[in-house]
């Protein structure tokens, strides 16, 4: 089975340019994005009250179709192109930044044992 590693997931276009241009991220919380220089406000908005991150926000940097193409050969199936959402699965259904990620497939498809970064 192909394991989806963090480098494969994150390596597809988290804009280095964006990260470089926007100063240091706060270190208060663990975040792969923060480690790459993405600020809280870039995902959560500037209101001071961190809002849930809408799918479109992820898509500002990550192209779902591109991601689906990169994981096309994943076994037993491509999690990024599926019968439920096509390529439009909201990233945050599986991938979490500040807590453990989860495998949305698993409760129903018990053999889809992806490791979710």
């Amino acid at each position, binding site marked *: 089975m192909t394991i989806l590693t963090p480098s494969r997931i994150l390596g597809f276009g988290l804009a280095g340019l964006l990260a470089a241009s926007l100063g240091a991220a706060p270190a208060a919380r663990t975040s792969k994005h923060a480690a790459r220089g993405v600020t809280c406000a870039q995902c959560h908005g500037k209101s001071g009250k961190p809002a849930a991150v809408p799918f479109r926000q992820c898509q500002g940097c990550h192209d779902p179709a591109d991601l689906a193409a990169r994981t096309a050969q994943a076994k037993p*199936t491509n999690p990024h192109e599926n*019968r*439920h*959402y096509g390529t439009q699965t909201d990233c945050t259904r599986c991938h979490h930044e500040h807590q453990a990620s989860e495998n949305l497939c698993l*409760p129903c498809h*018990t053999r*889809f044992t992806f490791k979710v970064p």
Partner: protein
Amino acid sequence: MSDEPREEGQGPDAYTRQVLEQGLSRRSFLGRAAGGAAAVGLFGMGASPALAAAVKEPKADAFATSTDGGATLTFLPKPKPIRDREISETLTFDVVVVGAGASGVPAALSAAEHGAKVAVVQKAPFALSQGNTGSGIDLAASEKAGVEALVARLIADSNHRCNPKLIRQWAYHSGEAVRWVIDRAKQGGATVVDQGSPAQRAILKVNGYGMGYVTSFFGPKPYTTGDGMRALAKTAEKAGVKFFFQMPAMQLVQGRSGEVQGVIARGHDGKYRKFLAKKGVILATGDYQNNRAMSDYFIPDVKHLERKQLDRTGDGFALAYWAGGVFEPIGHTKMLHDFDAGPASMCDMPFLAVDRKGRRFVNETVEMSLLNNYLKDAENAGHYSQVFDADYMTQAATWPGRLVPPEGLKNYMPDEPGPKKGVFESQVNTHKAGTLEELARKLEVDPATLVATVRRYNEVVASGKDSDFGKPASFLAPILKAPFYGIHRRVRVSAICSGMLVDEHHQALDADGKPIKGLFLVGNLGGGFYGGVDYPLTVFGLSLGRCYTFGYLTGRHVARL
């Protein structure tokens, strides 16, 4: 043949009267809250002060707690209306359909074919549906007495709690509607056939009267009605229907007298769009199985049972409720199946069945579709296994159902290499083993318990009488000879099929039993078609057949307004 209404007395029928009296509407809720004593009965001791406060200042936590205190209807507080200045765009249609599924897509196409300008707003990125079979009655091939006998059977299946008018409406219009869906889906490129009467072997005669059926089949798996509805949506687009995907409906637009004038939906870009509907809004948003609060409240039976669907959050229930609609009373109908772990044709065969531990738990003549009632605790959570031995082809040859020989069973075995056909590969769960202990491990039951269960079962079989559960002697076959077989099934919630009160035009009724102008409810959101503890399997494909039929009829009705 027609279902022309018989002579009826003044006022609503018995079904409607009961839902008005015991169902849940905004008005009845507020009224009961103020009533104190009634509120205690409905929402739990000590709840009424909080409820009274909630009337003025709605707080999600304070609203509508169930009798055991565990379930809260967080959807109840009506949200603040989205203001006009928050709307990025306003579009005007004759008919706006919310939800592109087995009822919504037919409703939209049917309305368009009858001259309406139609929009469909859909939360998901495309049309969605589940299952393969959708059925109707072929009136030309049926005796009228047979149609009425089947209506009576379906009413009994629903423990006499359904609205007979709606059953009769399905009976007399489903053949036409299902044929229409087949034809139009084919135009969109669907793989669909009419399996006709042979697919309904058990009901070719009802009470001795002859019957014929139209049985649409989108398949075989993994092709489903979801693919079928996407094809039907193509036909609808050609007919002028405009689809708006990733566009969840947030609120209804209501006029001063409560009439529904349109829908406000939120686009993928986060912006609100207003869809005005000159003739009516048809909600076809499906059930609420993924809304934990709503499920725990209306159907606590499924608390520990797994869900088959995603995102069925009861959006239309909330919208219709806020608009004054009435929920059917607590005690909703559920549909739990597993046709995928092993052959569907063997699911009701009365082999030894063991629970998740490995214990026998039932007289196995109970159908798979009802076994959830024995397995609804957290430990079992719908899991059980059918167990049989190497001689099953001869020992069970005369049992109801259809046996699949060992070679064919491989298609359902995850441990067998090679591609599988006609199944959901990720759901197959049939196993073969040289010993009972090995089989137990594959079935994820306790080996020692399974061995003891089989030993006891074999004693019962040898005695010729099932002194443990009373199963007929003709269904007693020993489990002695390797290889041993097991099918690990887990029944999960396919659908919850109770809904909100509608009349024969599928128009929502308010707490006074008056139609809410401009608001129509179809599919699993529409109430009155079921009422039993479980969805009945008398007519294979009744659920999709009803969705198609009521979508088809309602689209046409609203277009003609």
